[in-house]
């Protein structure tokens, strides 16, 4: 099993997420994360999907997704692209541990976004592996709640997803 990241431009309409996610479930694709947001064009959303599988599943998933009418462009994101994920973590802190947690967050360049007598909320952006490392370090203090956005990615240099070849135009 390998991990692959796929970016897709899709129509920004209700029901599109259902079409994509129901495709995954009925074809048995195993995904790690899926994040969606609007793009510079309000009619278009961007999906970033992290897939577990092999080259066959990757090819099938991309081709099956590409057949969906609401999927405009699709691209397998290369490993050297820029990958980022956002994390919010609520950690149990008191007078004794707060400064240790603050120190940790400085090492990881996380932000402290909320402090209360018994808990601290931290914010961190980075590659998923960096977030994993941060979470591991926080765990001993008592991780009360964790929210991660799932990874989003963009290719380096001038190349853009909207310049990808379009299967629907070939036939």
């Amino acid at each position: 099993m390998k991990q692959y990241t796929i970016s897709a431009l899709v129509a920004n309409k209700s029901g599109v997420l259902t079409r994509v996610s129901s495709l995954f479930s009925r074809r048995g694709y195993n995904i790690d994360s899926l994040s969606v947001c609007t793009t510079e064009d309000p009619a278009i959303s961007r999906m970033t999907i992290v897939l577990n599988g092999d080259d066959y599943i990757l090819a099938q998933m991309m081709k099956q997704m590409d057949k969906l009418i609401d999927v405009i462009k699709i691209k397998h994101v290369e490993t050297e692209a820029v990958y980022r994920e956002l994390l919010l973590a609520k950690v149990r802190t008191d007078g004794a541990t707060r400064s240790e947690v603050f120190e940790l967050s400085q090492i990881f360049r996380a932000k402290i976004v909320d402090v209360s007598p018994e808990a601290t909320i931290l914010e961190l952006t980075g590659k998923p592996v960096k977030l994993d490392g941060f979470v591991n370090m926080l765990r001993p203090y008592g991780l009360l709640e964790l929210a991660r956005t799932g990874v989003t990615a963009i290719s380096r240099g001038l190349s853009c997803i909207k310049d990808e070849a379009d299967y629907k135009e070939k036939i």
Partner: protein
Amino acid sequence: MKKIGAEILIDCLKEQGVDTVFGYPGGYVLDIYDALYRDGTINHVITAHEQGAAHAADGYARSTGKTGVVIATSGPGATNLVTGIATAFMDSVPLVAITGNVAINFLGRDSFQEIDITGVTIPVTKHNFIVKDVNDLADVVREAFRIANTGRKGPVLIDILKNVQQTTADYEPVPPASCARKPVPESAVKDAAAAIAASSRPLLMVGGGAIASEASQEVRALAEKLHAPVVSTLMGLGAFPASHPLFCGMMGMHGTATAAKLCLESDCLIAIGTRFSDRVALNRDKFAENKTVVQIDIDDAELNKNVAVDYAVLGDVKEAIRTLLPLLGEKDDAFAQKAAAYREQEKKNAKKPELGHEILIEAARLAPEDSVVTTDVGQHQMWTAQYYPVERPRSLCTSGGLGTMGYGFGAAIGAAIGTGKQVVFVTGDGSFNMNLNELSTAVTQNLPIVILLMNNRALGMVRQWQKLFYNRRFSQTVVNKRTDYVKFAESFGATGLRIEKESDIVPVLKEAFSKKSPVLVDCVISEDENVLPMIKPGHTYDTIITEWKEN
């Protein structure tokens, strides 16, 4: 000009050249039916059940090449379409299904006859729409027809809310979008052409895509240039004439022994518009062993999906073969001669056909040449594929992918209305009981449909598997219904006839085909007529079973 939504829908159907629709009225399509009534130019065929209407639209589409249109009301009307839509989806049939739904202020409140039919049909449509604003309606209908007919064809559903049907909007007619296929560049077929040229035993494998893209002439030209024998999937039957000397029959689970031998011996398989379904490839990992496989398909996702191929050509098969032909030289006919010898041998080895087979052989001889055949699903379907020679594309309608028992009657109605020709509807007593209510439709419309009901009082195909794999434990497959099908036909206003022995066949069939109205022929056959040859699921072609001793 200003029109209400229901009128815009009818006008948009007319823009697309629709002159016939199938359907069933109901509360949330009243406005559509009112607009149909006031317009008066579209022939609406009401069936006994929405499932029959969906299959009729499918049979209409398969037999004519046009888009089938079916209308149903919300809730149960819409859900009754689902099997028909799924059947069309699995076999890539262009269909536009139109359903009504509750008004927007009732949506999402579990109102009477409200169902989320777009949610239900996501997995079985190419795409679907829910129209909540009348200003979107015309473009949605146009887009639905375009989607149904471009690329790999398939069904599209449009769910139209009641308020949309009743609200006024601006409407201007627009000519239908072009659904022309793109030419396939030489670069896409060059490597495949070289591989074909280097082969010495090329074999053409023809699928339903060859019919969908109207590629019969091109397939024939390719086969004749290469002197390549041709085998066909169930869906491909008719793409290449059954009487052509290069034709070697159906391949797959119940294909001919000749087809199986040729598949094993060929060094280059040219797969045209086929997805190597499990009923064809059987063992997908070993199917392509010891040979080069060229796959031509319009659906990118089908390339390399079931069988890993050496050369995948994306594009319309008609266009691809056109590009391919000039790159290929003539070949010798050694493999074709071998194929002919195998075919002769198979014919010589064949036992005397059983009663059911004989009926199909005679029906093919006695039916008018331009007849269309439809089938249900089971043993009779395979016998039809084996014994009823299909000469022309679009003259066989059968549910290949979904395997829908109950498909054939609706399809027969659609084909009879679409082509105006004689229809032979082959069914079994199991399948027939699923949608026999449509006999009322056939009688009301006075359609020339001869029903050959292979009555073995059992669910023969499942029973055959129980014989083979379940040590003859015939769980729920020996049904022994007491129905008198002759009387049944007569009570519906059709003609009922019966074949019980060989000498009945010709006189009864002659009478049946002379009627030009619905005739049900109760063909009383043995429950032990099997479908042979057979290759077990997951097995390889060399394990084909051609003979079977009872017990």
